[in-house]
């Protein structure tokens, strides 16, 4: 018995040690699937490694909002917007903001409406001028308005290489603008300008011809090359022609016409010279025929037909054509068209 009494404290110690060991083992064997040091029981995101601050959940964008509560987990934002940013600081988070880069009121879904006409700037073709919804935020067209949109020729066109007026005497029996168009179009067709593009212009209209290739004397090149950019290089079996092509730079000359019919004088824009690409693209925005409302306008002697000539030159070794101002062939460009106008 004496032996048993003396061993008792040892049993107590062994018992306590066993308890401690078991406790340690239980910690060791607690499940931690994402191995973030927080057991699955206490981990709000047991399958995704995270930090203790967010109960074991990650915060990928480091904005203080755990990914599980973050509506924009990849973009740092603010807690009041559920972790989403508000780039323009208008109080509408980017995720709900129709215009995340422009500050606007909540009632407009975060989009601005600078002129307050009820048409949001992003849909407003005239964001600084009040207009109607039907006219895309622009005011209803008046003669003096300058509105650059599809179908309207800039009221201040880019400066032209040559400007030539066509006297009204060349047009016969004109009563409406339609009559001017008919006779002008006929003369242009006879000169093989088959693709005409119509624009409204102030109180009249403008007709744009497609870009054509001309020679240095302003005469159209042969049809094969007239409507393409490729410079004419065909060598007829002639030594002189070959030597000419070999030793003379084969620059490309290009031109397009804009015939403006208006009773207002034309003033030119100061926005710099036009580029060939712009002028090639211009006809794409026009209509195939004159607007019937404009065609019906009765002409007076105040209506003038003015031809704006846009000429470009592409030096043989250059990659881009440049605008020619002024044209070396002032007054010569229109001769064939006027000749056809005068034909009966």
């Amino acid at each position, binding site marked *: 018995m004496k032996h048993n009494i003396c061993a008792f404290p040892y049993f107590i110690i062994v018992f306590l040690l066993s308890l401690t060991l078991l406790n340690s083992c239980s910690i060791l064997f607690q499940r931690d699937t994402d191995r973030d040091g927080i057991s699955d029981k206490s981990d709000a995101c047991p399958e995704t490694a995270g930090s203790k601050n967010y109960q074991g959940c990650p915060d990928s964008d480091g904005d203080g909002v755990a990914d599980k509560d973050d509506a924009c987990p990849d973009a740092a934002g603010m807690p009041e917007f559920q972790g989403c940013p508000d780039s323009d600081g208008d109080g509408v988070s980017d995720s709900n903001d129709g215009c995340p880069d422009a500050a606007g009121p909540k009632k407009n879904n975060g989009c601005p409406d600078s002129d307050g006409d009820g048409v949001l700037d992003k849909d407003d073709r005239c964001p600084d001028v009040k207009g109607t919804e039907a006219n895309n935020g622009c005011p209803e067209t008046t003669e003096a308005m300058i509105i650059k949109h599809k179908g309207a020729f800039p009221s201040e066109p880019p400066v032209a290489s040559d400007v030539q007026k066509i006297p009204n005497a060349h047009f016969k029996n004109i009563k409406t603008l339609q009559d001017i168009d008919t006779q002008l179009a006929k003369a242009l067709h006879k000169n093989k300008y088959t693709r005409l593009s119509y624009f409204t212009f102030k109180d009249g209209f403008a007709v744009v011809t497609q870009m054509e290739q001309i020679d240095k004397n302003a005469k159209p090149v042969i049809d094969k090359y007239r409507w393409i950019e490729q410079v004419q290089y065909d060598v007829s079996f002639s030594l002189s022609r070959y030597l000419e092509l070999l030793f003379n*730079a084969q620059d490309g000359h290009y031109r397009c016409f804009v015939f403006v019919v208006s009773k207002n004088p034309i003033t030119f824009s100061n926005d710099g010279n036009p580029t060939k690409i712009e002028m090639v693209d211009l006809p794409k925005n026009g209509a195939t025929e004159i607007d019937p409302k404009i065609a019906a306008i009765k002409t007076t002697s105040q209506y003038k037909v003015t031809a704006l000539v846009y000429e470009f030159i592409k030096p043989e070794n*250059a990659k881009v054509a440049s605008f020619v101002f002024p044209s070396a062939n002032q007054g010569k460009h229109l001769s064939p068209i006027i000749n056809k106008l005068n034909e009966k």
Partner: protein
Amino acid sequence: MKIAFEIAQKKLAILWFAFAAVIFLLMFALTISSKLNGFTKEAWAWFCQVILPTLSIIATAFVVNSNNGQISDRMIDRFSFRLAFYLSLFYLLVILMVILIVPFTGKGMVEFMAESNLYVGPVQAILAAVISIFFIKKT
């Protein structure tokens, strides 16, 4: 079959200098005409690039060998000479054609010269190797 190195070297040098002179004169004519307007540097850079490296090798070797008294005794394999000579002739004709054919291409002179580097470059590299062999192989 062997050929005297001195004769072979002279033939090769004549070929190169004759063609180089013709191409140079052609380039000069193009320069004083309006053809290279604004792009003269690019055109002459092309000329230097395609002609000068090989011409320099030939000229240097010619001068070095001329100062060597024993050159008249040396012989060269006829095949090595023919290979260097005809490959040079082919290369120089290609260079000449690049200039003369431009009017038929519809492209700009400088643009066509720049494009020609694609096919002239590899031929030039092979030619440089063949000419180097020619000068080394003399016995």
